[in-house]
């Protein structure tokens, strides 16, 4: 059986290519039908904020690429509730259908996957 991989994305979409490069790992793995999950943690939860205007800082919009995750078979999407709350983001107004986890659930999630990559 294929090993499962959890990708933890910890950077805001405007802080360099990290957010996109974490997403690229997920999309590449999805193309191979691998069992993948993606967790948005720390500043990574800013990727889920709705109605972003990245063109104001001459950046491409990551949101459209994030929406592709379910189409690539990556349906296990999670966000850290603590990270969202600290940044004033509303759990009910996120741009992706993520499951919001408390700290205990985060620990269980990371333990459930065979492998973890953090970017």
């Amino acid at each position, binding site marked *: 059986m294929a090993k499962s*991989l959890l990708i933890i994305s910890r950077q805001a979409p405007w802080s360099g290519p990290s957010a996109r490069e974490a997403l690229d790992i997920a999309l590449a*793995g999805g193309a191979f039908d691998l069992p993948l999950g993606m967790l948005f943690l720390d500043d990574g939860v800013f990727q889920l904020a709705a109605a972003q205007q990245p063109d104001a800082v001459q950046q491409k919009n990551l949101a459209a690429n994030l929406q592709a995750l379910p189409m690539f078979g990556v349906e296990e999407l999670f966000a850290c509730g603590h990270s969202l709350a600290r940044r004033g983001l509303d759990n009910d107004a996120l741009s992706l259908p993520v499951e919001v986890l408390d700290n205990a659930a985060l620990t269980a999630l990371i333990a459930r996957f065979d492998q973890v990559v953090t970017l």
Partner: protein
Amino acid sequence: MKFAIAVFSPAHAPSSRRALRFAEAVLAGGHEIARLFFYQDGVHSASANIVAPQDELDVAAQWRAFVSDHRLDAVVCIAAALRRGVLDDTEANRYQRPAVNLPMPWELSGLGQLHEAAQLADRLVCFGGD
């Protein structure tokens, strides 16, 4: 045990040096490296154009020697490398850039190689940050 090792930091970061020391210890311990995968700023760890001061450790040169000496499968992510100006001969020609800084023993390839290595190996160990 079979290890896949991913490096996310440039040669001047302590984590690149730690990754190299870990990889050396893997082989010294009689284990196997399924693949080394260089991603994000880790592509700079593979650059041949790094000039370390004479009295400092040259981690990029040590990576190069380590990969060559042990004939390891060492993949540099092509998308991450192009973005950061780490080019082999083919890519420098394709995009008409004046310098090549990724000669042998590295291979430029895609993220599928990271997934394949993670599937082949018993452990995936990543090195990033400082």
